[in-house]
């Protein structure tokens, strides 16, 4: 029995999947098939674990983690049958870079609604370098599928034989044929944009404009300032960080309106506040757990 490969797949593509194919026969694996034809039984993800929550009971815990990548959020569920992963999750202090290998799952509460998730086999806290490498690998994997999906889109309908002839491997060819039957024509421009965006995410030249405050403005201590870590926040940013930390009462992040008011009270204008928030996001000192809320890392 060949071990199933661990797909490197962005949340943006994985969460678009609504097709699950059950294996036939004894112990045959089941797959989640994405619109680009990835036939996913096992998945490997490295992202920011932004929150971990017990959505079960104390007696029967079910740990849910959200894991962000540049394109979206994975949902990871570990219960009593994944004791090691559940134990690892319960000990993590988000936010933290995490590597997760697990099995693909879909959940359909009602017809027409499908949620994908991951049932973890192993979870490990890692560093940013590992995460960046994962993004690169996920980009390569996505590009391979995009190229093949582009070819498949020219066929009506695509067949495994025709795809094999242009060098598409069997597993992907099979996935593309099934994807075409289930999803119809995939929106390739969406995934091309996803690929470009993820690549830019890795490149400092594409990061948002940094406000001049972030640069050393005084000439005298310049040498000293340059020797500093680039992640060092400016005075305004320090104030904003404090505000965010103090307003984050329930652990879900500080609401935007509150930050705006409180920042005004400590002398940070709305413009400066926006600059500071963007800069802090860039420096990885805060993040947006949900839209409209900011949380200190």
């Amino acid at each position: 029995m060949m071990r199933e490969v661990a797909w490197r797949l962005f949340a943006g593509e994985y969460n678009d999947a609504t097709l699950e194919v059950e294996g036939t026969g004894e112990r045959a694996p089941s797959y989640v098939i994405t619109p680009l034809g990835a036939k996913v039984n096992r998945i490997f993800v490295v992202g920011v674990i932004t929150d971990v929550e017990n959505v079960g009971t104390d007696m029967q815990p079910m740990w849910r983690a959200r894991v962000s990548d540049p394109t979206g959020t994975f949902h990871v569920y570990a219960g009593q049958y994944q004791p090691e992963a559940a134990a690892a999750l319960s000990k993590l202090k988000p936010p933290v870079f995490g590597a997760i290998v697990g099995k693909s799952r879909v959940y359909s509460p009602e017809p027409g609604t499908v949620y994908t998730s991951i049932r973890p086999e192993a979870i490990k806290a890692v560093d940013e370098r590992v995460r960046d490498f994962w993004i690169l690998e996920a980009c390569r994997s996505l590009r391979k599928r995009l190229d093949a999906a582009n070819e498949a889109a020219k066929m009506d309908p695509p067949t495994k034989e025709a795809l094999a002839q242009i060098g598409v491997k069997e597993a992907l060819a099979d996935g593309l044929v099934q994807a075409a039957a289930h999803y119809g024509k995939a929106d390739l421009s969406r995934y091309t944009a996803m690929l470009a965006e993820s690549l830019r995410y890795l490149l400092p030249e594409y990061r948002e404009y940094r406000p001049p405050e972030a640069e050393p403005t005084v000439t005298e201590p310049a040498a000293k300032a340059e020797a500093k870590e680039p992640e060092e926040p400016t005075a305004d940013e320090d104030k904003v960080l404090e505000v965010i930390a103090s307003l984050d009462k329930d652990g879900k992040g500080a609401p935007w309106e509150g930050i705006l008011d409180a920042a005004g009270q400590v002398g940070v204008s709305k413009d400066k506040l926006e600059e500071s928030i963007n800069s802090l996001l860039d420096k990885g000192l805060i993040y947006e757990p949900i839209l409209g809320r900011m949380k200190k890392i």
Partner: protein
Amino acid sequence: MSESEIEKELSSYLNVYRVSLDTAKRSIVKKHGGNPAGLAVGINKTIRELVPGEQSVNLLARIVAVNEKDVNVESGTKRILYGILGDPSATIPFTAWEPLNVPLAKGDVVRVTNAYTKEYRGQVQVNFGVRTTVAKEKTDALPEYKPAAGVGMPYIGKPTALKVVDLREGASNVAVTARVLSVEAREVEVDGAKKAVYSGVLADDTGKSQFSAWKDFGLAEDDVLRIEGAYVKSWRGIPQLSFDDRAAVTKLKDDALAPAAKLGESPRMWIEDLAERGGGVDVTVRGILIDLREGSGLVYRCPECNRVLRKGACRIHGEVKGNADLRVKAVLDDGSGALTAVFNRELTEALLDKTMDAAIAQAKDAMSVDVVRDELSDLLVAQPIEARGNVTSDDYGLMMIVDTAKLLRVDVQTEAREMLEQMEGSA
């Protein structure tokens, strides 16, 4: 049921329904509960006479070799038999796609009825399908098959030219152009007789392969050769080139292939391609160590049989005082496939940057060997790694015995920039 009734029925099929005689006969036998498979009349042939596309052929042959394997079919996996049939005229590969009602063993003489043939990689192959019946005969029904010294069973047709990377188990009558990287002579016993075999490693620009030459072709290291009429066997899944008297070996000019130093490099391969081939000699893969397997870290081995002890006991020799060893068994996944990579003591010591003695002391302090495993896990899991070694395969998948390994430091930004430029260039 009288003969005249059957006659009437047959006449009705033929004259009223106007089906073919063959169909009519099959239908009638089936209708009355018989097995129509016994009906069809195959043509008796010797193996030498077989051509591709035989619909129904009968053979009297000896099983020269037989193996089982699982193949993937639409409804899941299926166990098939494959091997080699021989008669005094020639040998030929065969595959039994359906379960047989007699077990087959090497040396059996069988009467095969209603087999069919196909051509695969330039070689005729015999297939046993649903209609085929196989019955055992007395072993003296056929003179014992011997790959007679001096005269092998000749191949039919022209050899198929293949690159080393494209060699697959079971292929025969192939032609390969390759450079001998190493060769040594040894003596083996075949059916009680001593025989010299010349084995080593050869390579072309696609990869390396072990080889065995069953005749003294005067092979020397660094020779560039054209070998025509070779066949491919496998050792632990790795395809290997074999050739004997039937082969023609021609020495080519040295510049016909890249120099040995270049061909000796380990080719980078994707795991899915290794899986498809069954393994490879001295290949390099890059992937991520996604999990440590049971038995990684500081282990103790049975002094008798070298098996790893579980809870201080050997599976065969019971409670023994084990010898310490340090190793890693990890799942290496490159996004196209996965294999189990085994790192020996030396490599593990290098990865940990500590000696086994230091690891033993560490485990004593912690009163558990788990600390070594945990340290390895911290160090290796989720890390990109490049590993080089031989990859074998069995029912449990691929395994690499790692020769050299290094953790990769990838320049993510440069690669991302390149990909982005390619995208923008093509847009």
